[in-house]
């Protein structure tokens, strides 16, 4: 039996108008990602990888083409529905961590649950499980601005995992970290992938991309390999 992809992009184009000029950021991108994959999207600045990441993360919609997630076409949904799918299916890890600096580690990890349908009495338990998975149990009550860069990124990973999403979408997750801490974070992603998590790593760093089993290299808005 043929395996059904978790995420399928069909002939995606994305055009922007800059002044009067039309810019084609993506041009006929098609790709398939299966459950349990660890893939990277690699490309230099201006290659269209950020635009592709936004479309995969349902933060943006394609100009033409289809985004099929869990067998459902999500390319033309309204903002409310996209928000709900993002909440359930996508876990974001950003280069700049994007934590709420005045909130504690626990409060940061709980954040996506606030917008979910998961009952409130389970929030703390779920968040603590994820915090333990990223080895930050002892910092649970610390404010996020009291943490090191590596710890912040681990909080972001716990936050991305807390809703048990189908896909973890990591945008340059080691970009703001030193090489040693960056390596630890990558190790964490490998561990999570072994636990069955689907991970998409978006990076400009070809060396880093080599750790993933599948790579989509973008150039001028097209997948070249």
């Amino acid at each position: 039996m043929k395996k059904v992809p978790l995420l399928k992009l069909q002939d995606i184009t994305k055009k922007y108008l800059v002044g009067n000029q039309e810019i084609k950021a993506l041009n006929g991108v098609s790709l398939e990602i299966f459950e349990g994959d660890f893939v990277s999207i690699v490309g230099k600045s201006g290659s269209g990888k950020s635009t592709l990441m936004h479309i995969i993360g349902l933060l943006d919609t394609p100009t033409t083409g289809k985004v099929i997630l869990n067998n459902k076409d999500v390319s033309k949904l309204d903002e409310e529905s996209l928000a709900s799918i993002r909440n359930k299916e996508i876990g974001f890890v950003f280069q700049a961590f994007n934590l709420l600096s005045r909130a504690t580690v626990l409060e940061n990890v709980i954040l996506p649950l606030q917008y979910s349908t998961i009952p409130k009495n389970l929030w703390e338990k779920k968040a603590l499980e994820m915090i333990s998975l990223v080895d930050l149990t002892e910092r649970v009550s610390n404010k996020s601005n009291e943490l090191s860069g590596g710890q912040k990124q681990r909080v972001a990973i716990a936050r991305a995992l807390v809703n048990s999403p189908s896909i973890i979408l990591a945008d340059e997750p080691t970009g703001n970290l030193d090489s040693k801490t960056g390596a630890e974070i990558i190790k964490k992603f490998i561990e999570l992938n072994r636990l069955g998590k689907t991970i998409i790593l978006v990076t400009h760093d070809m060396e880093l991309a080599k750790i993933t089993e599948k790579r989509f290299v973008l150039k001028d808005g097209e997948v070249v390999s």
Partner: protein
Amino acid sequence: MIKELFKSAIISLGANKTRTFLTMLGIIIGVFAVVTLISIGQGIQNFVTDRFSNLGSNLIFVAPGKLDLRGDPGANYLTNKLDEKHFKLVETYSSDYIQYLTPMMEIGKSLTYKNKTYYSVVQATNEEGNLAYNVELVSGKFFEKSDVSARNKVVVLGSEVAREFFPNQEALGNNIKIEDKVFTVIGVVREKGGQLDSRVYIPYTTAKRLFNIDKFSALVMKARSPEIVESAIKSVKNSLLRDLEETEFTVLSQKEILDSFTSILANITIGIGAIAAISLLVGGIGIMNIMLVTVTERTREIGLRKAVGATPNNIALQFMVEATSLSVIGGLIGTFLGILVAFIIKTYFNFNAEVPLWSVILAFSFSFAVGVIFGTYPAIKASKKDPIEALRYE
């Protein structure tokens, strides 16, 4: 959800305490002003109502000039024609309707006893003045008809005057001076609280003789029963029209005066409330301003929240809760300060300032409404932010 939003609002408001306080200040001052001014207005109303109920019921007043309680009452006294003759006219032609009739003269004078001086309002009246003013004596007696006709130099002291001049001795029989005229104390009034305690009473005939006054500031009378107040007013008018023009006097029932006062006070209270509401409006603009700054400052946070699943409505609600918390907390502080000041006025200034429940509800509702109204625009602005742009915001 609301609990989380409120918690998040408190965290972000607490992050910048000085700014939060300064933003709230407009609301605090506005609500404080509303609550305090209404409490003072209510206090004045209580005071006037108490004064009138102290006077007894079924009273009818004749005042000089055309008095509508809205013009300048002082102007009528310059052309005052009300005198002894009119007193006699009412006494003669309206006696069927009237239980008692008393003239009223109020003169500010200095009183002295030995080396003590006291500035008081001298109330010149006749032997029935004690009934009109509801005067109860703690010792001695009120002056009698004979004192009035003989123009005797006798005086009845208000309790405060008696306490001032004769703290440790019997006041009766002593002589005090009103200006340079010597009067004998024949009675002391029971304490009632308020201004009446600082007055003294003398026969009006004596006042006319010694202080060279012959116009009355009013005639006060009591109708024989509540049912005939209207007919009594008519009869008094007719009696006075024998000598005066219609524009030269006004006859008012106690109820009319009280109603007019209440209505004027209500209008003043509303006016003051409206002025205070302007400061709430200014406070609201301050809130909107700061919320707009907050939305810009927290653009990345908005982007993050959207990325993890917040809908535009979730974001709008979050900022609405924040703006409303800001104004409601300000409103609660303002209400508390207003109640505190009313309490201080009541306790230390012997003035019955009262905070009615409706004013607290009004102030609270107003501050809530200010938060909702002025929080809406920033909240909508936040909810419309593009998550991609917001996440990139530096």
